[in-house]
């Protein structure tokens, strides 16, 4: 009751301060005038009456002030006072303030910088209308592979689910990862492209006409696809991204309605998408209609799973309901088509969840945010330690203020205000620093087109986050010293005249505890980063099993316009390899469905003579399709049998080469040569292939360190449209890039090349963010070590300066310098040993946690547990030694007089 009216009155006081002031004025004026009127009626002149009334009333301003106070308005004024006072005290001790602010600024800057990544990757709202109502449907592979629940779905399933589901208002599908070749705007009289530039490979997506309607995204101008534009004969329409429109077409508005050449065919531009249509991991610059042919609807088409489905939920349907519905539909498909669908499921996510899961950055971001969080905690502990030390110096001031009537709450508030001022200054400075930090991160995060398409900015999320952690830091830094100071015994502190007492045991105990915690956290961080960096760099430096140097590669996708059948594809491969072989310094040339180290897809297979198992229980292997010279070009040694040759063509018996691991795992060491296997690959009816050779293992560049079974098919026997060219050379591979381009242009001038780069660059691309991740993590760990060292230094230096008197007495009584040195060093060593022990204990479960977080990362770094604590001890000893030396030099006479 009383509480409530107090709050109400206080709220009113805050909200209506000016009104209250004028009301108070009116009330007091009324009093004086009414009093004067009474006097007038008793016969006094009006002027005299007013004068007497004012005198009787006394000081009006004082009364008003007292009224305000009894109203509780003073709280606001008090807060203002706290802040101005805090600012004033801090500006008086600039050195202290500068160190505290800088420490926090560093901690907050690294946090804000890392948070810009969180904001960019995890918090960005997808474009379009009500993105939370969009569900994304992926296939779930029964074979455990990388991102096995983010697989594609087949065209027959898309069509069936679109028709059968009860939960979606509309369902669209897209094949997001296509590449088309964009040439000039037409052909001249001689049938040559009018544009003189090279044909360009552009990332594109084939989408069902309702795709953008489902996403709720409108074109910047023009239109999206109409129903029926996915029918053969009507499909030559294209949507262009804003970026491509700017870059390639000079933002020409007349592009609308014009035709452009894609894969040697004319397409009419019907619309340009807006610049803000950007989703992480999506890099399509062109959209064409997804054409569904009769062949796409056969049962064999179920083996191809190129699509992702996007659906808008019906108004009152939840994602869980959609998930249940899709589980039912996937189960039905499993029953109807067990040959291809056995074990396959369907995963349903919201668009935002899908984008994040697909981009696979959560684990790395979690580790980085934990690391910077720990750095900030160490920084806070340092600042809290500084404040505590200062509070010890200010014990007397505070005691006097308390004895003069300042409430303890007021003192706590005062010290908290100081913490807050420091933290806000630190936050401001940190945000400023993070501006550069974010620029740096943006500049380094461009190692592939997926990453560089994500805008990283100092946005509102980052600013708010910086503010929030500043306030949290203020609480962390300010609370301990504030409570500690407010508990102080006034009488003791007032009396405590001499500085000899090794001031305030409880204070120094608290600070020791904090520095110990700092050391523990820093050690934990060092061990954790060491483990991850060690694990990642082991991947980086592993022997991949083939020669990665002096190898130039380029990716090619043959369009179906020019290369209609297998024979034409085979002809291109033959001619291109012939031309490449003519390049001087070329030692071996080959084509391969996938480059070694990049990780091809897994396929299931059968061994002749073994019972036929359902699809989800079959053996599986990595599958390459290569030309004969592949093993020489890649530098993979042949162990048994023979390599593939030119004679292994379409007319010959199907043959394959397998690797050692295949023999060991799947053939259990039996004689491999002559064994027949049947791969479940798409295309016409599968055939039995004979194993004719065994080659050494190669590794896929990934976190999985183990060897995988591999099969190499002959490209002449199974032609494919998408593959990489490989050129082994005796010279610098990058210098041969023009020669390679020319050689391919001689075969087909309109065919674009993608990712023309050396094998080392390919591997660097595979490493992705890892090197940056390692560098960031390493620098955070070092920053933590530095901050912890500063913390130790501060504490020991302070305690030495407090003990100058004591040390002086010891020296005067005959203690030798080494003894004094030992005494001070011991103090630092104790904290280090304690902190290190705690930190090591905390770090014990880390390897397990990392293995779970990062797909199959193998961690074996036992040396770390020795090296890190020793390095830590060395640093902390150095931090202790500097003030200890000062203690040693104490002149007893000066120290004794020092008062």
């Amino acid at each position, binding site marked *: *009751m*009383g509480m*409530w*009216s*107090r709050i109400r*009155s206080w709220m009113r006081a805050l909200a209506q301060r000016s009104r209250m002031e004028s*009301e*108070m004025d*009116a*009330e*007091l004026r*009324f*009093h004086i*005038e*009414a*009093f004067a*009127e009474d006097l007038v009626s008793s016969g006094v002149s009006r002027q005299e009456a007013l004068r007497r009334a004012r005198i*009787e*009333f*006394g*000081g*009006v301003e*004082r*009364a008003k002030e*007292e*009224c305000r*106070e*009894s*109203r*509780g308005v003073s709280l606001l004024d008090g807060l203002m006072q706290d802040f101005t006072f805090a600012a004033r005290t801090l500006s008086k001790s600039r050195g202290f303030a500068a160190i505290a602010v800088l420490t926090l600024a560093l901690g907050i800057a690294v946090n804000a910088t890392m948070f810009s990544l969180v904001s960019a990757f995890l918090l960005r709202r997808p474009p379009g209308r009500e993105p939370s109502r969009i569900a994304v449907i992926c296939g779930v592979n029964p074979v455990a592979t990388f991102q096995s629940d983010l697989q594609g779905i087949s065209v027959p399933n898309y069509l069936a689910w679109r028709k059968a589901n009860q939960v979606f208002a509309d369902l669209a599908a897209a094949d997001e990862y296509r590449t088309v070749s964009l040439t000039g705007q037409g052909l001249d009289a001689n049938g040559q492209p009018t544009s003189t530039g090279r044909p360009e490979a552009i990332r594109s997506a084939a989408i069902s006409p309702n795709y953008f309607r489902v996403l709720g995204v409108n074109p910047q101008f023009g239109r999206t696809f109409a129903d029926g534009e996915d029918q053969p004969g009507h499909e030559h329409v294209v949507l262009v991204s804003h970026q491509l429109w700017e870059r390639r077409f000079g933002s020409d508005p007349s592009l609308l309605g014009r035709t452009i050449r894609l894969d040697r065919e004319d397409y009419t531009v019907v619309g340009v998408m807006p610049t803000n249509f950007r989703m992480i991991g999506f890099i399509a610059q062109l959209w064409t209609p997804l054409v569904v042919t009769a062949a796409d609807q056969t049962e064999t088409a179920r083996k191809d799973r190129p699509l992702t489905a996007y659906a808008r939920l019906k108004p009152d349907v939840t994602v869980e309901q959609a998930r249940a519905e899709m589980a039912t539909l996937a189960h039905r498909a499993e029953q109807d088509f067990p040959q291809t669908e056995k074990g396959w499921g369907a995963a349903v996510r919201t668009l935002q969840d899908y984008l994040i899961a697909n981009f696979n950055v959560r684990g790395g971001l979690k580790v980085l945010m934990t690391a910077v969080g720990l750095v900030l905690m160490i920084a806070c502990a340092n600042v809290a330690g500084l404040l505590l030390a200062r509070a010890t110096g200010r014990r007397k001031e505070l005691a006097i203020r308390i004895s003069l009537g300042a409430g303890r709450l007021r003192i706590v508030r005062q010290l908290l205000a100081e913490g807050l001022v420091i933290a806000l200054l630190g936050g401001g400075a940190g945000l400023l620093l993070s501006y550069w930090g974010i620029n740096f991160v943006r500049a380094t995060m461009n190692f592939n087109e997926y990453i560089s398409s994500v805008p990283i900015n100092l946005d509102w999320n980052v600013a708010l986050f910086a503010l929030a952690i500043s306030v949290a830091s203020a609480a962390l830094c300010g609370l301990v010293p504030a409570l500690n100071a407010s508990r102080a015994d006034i009488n003791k502190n007032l009396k405590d005249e001499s500085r000899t007492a090794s001031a305030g045991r409880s204070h120094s105990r608290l600070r020791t505890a904090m520095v110990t915690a700092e050391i523990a956290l820093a050690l934990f961080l060092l061990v954790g980063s060491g483990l991850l960096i060690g694990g990642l760099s082991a991947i980086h430096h592993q022997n991949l099993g083939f020669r990665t140097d002096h190898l130039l590669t380029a990716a090619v996708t043959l369009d179906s316009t020019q290369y209609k059948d297998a024979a034409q594809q085979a002809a291109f491969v033959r001619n291109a390899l012939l031309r490449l072989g003519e390049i001087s310094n070329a030692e071996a040339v080959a084509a391969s469905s996938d480059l070694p180290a990049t990780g091809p897809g897994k396929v299931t297979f059968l061994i002749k003579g073994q019972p036929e198992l359902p699809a989800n229980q079959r053996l599986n292997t990595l599958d390459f399709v290569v030309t004969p010279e592949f093993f020489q070009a890649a530098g993979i040694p042949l162990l048994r049998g023979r390599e593939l040759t030119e004679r292994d063509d379409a007319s010959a018996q199907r043959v394959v080469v397998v690797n050692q691991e295949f023999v060991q795992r799947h053939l259990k060491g039996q004689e491999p040569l002559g064994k027949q296997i049947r791969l479940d690959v798409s295309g016409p009816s599968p055939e039995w292939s004979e194993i004719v050779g065994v080659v050494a293992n190669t590794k896929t560049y990934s976190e999985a360190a183990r060897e995988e079974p591999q099969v190499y098919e002959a490209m002449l026997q199974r032609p494919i449209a998408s593959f990489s060219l490989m050129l082994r050379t005796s010279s610098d591979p990058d210098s041969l890039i023009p020669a390679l381009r020319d050689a391919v242009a001689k075969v087909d001038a309109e065919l674009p090349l993608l990712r023309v780069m050396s094998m080392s660059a390919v591997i660097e691309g595979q490493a992705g963010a890892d090197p940056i991740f390692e560098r960031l993590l390493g620098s955070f760990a070092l920053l933590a070590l530095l901050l912890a060292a500063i913390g130790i230094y501060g504490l020991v230096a302070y305690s030495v300066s407090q003990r100058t008197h004591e040390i002086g007495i010891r020296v005067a009584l005959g203690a030798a310098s080494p003894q004094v040195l030992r005494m001070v060093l011991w103090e630092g060593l104790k904290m280090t040993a304690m902190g290190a022990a705690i930190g090591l204990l905390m770090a014990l479960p880390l390897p397990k946690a990392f293995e779970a977080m990062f797909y199959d990362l193998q961690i074996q770094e036992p040396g770390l547990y020795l090296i890190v604590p020793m390095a830590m001890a060395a640093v902390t000893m150095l931090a202790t030694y500097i003030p200890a030396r000062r203690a040693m030099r104490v002149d007893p006479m000066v120290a004794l007089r020092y008062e």
Partner: protein
Amino acid sequence: MDKKQMELLQGTLDMLILKAVSLGPLHGYGVLLRIQQISKDRLEIQQGSLYPALYRLEHQGWIASEWGESENKRKAKYYRLTAAGKRKLQTEAEKWNRMADVIAGILQSTPEEV
């Protein structure tokens, strides 16, 4: 106010104000007049300290205020007792009476009683 006046005992002003407004809503000046009238001008009240006390009592929820018209047709702020104030006045009065009894008892004691 020429007569001999007594200074108010510390802490009693609040109780007197509550008593004054318990007899009917009053503006600040009216509270002063009422107390003087009831006490027959024997109490001296610092006019300046009256308003902080009123504000404090309102803040604590024992009295409530609203603007009204004075007998001279002027705008004035009127205070009235709330239910909580009524209870408060009651307990304060009881406390005061007990205290007065005790003090009086002590002062009336004779050497024989001790």
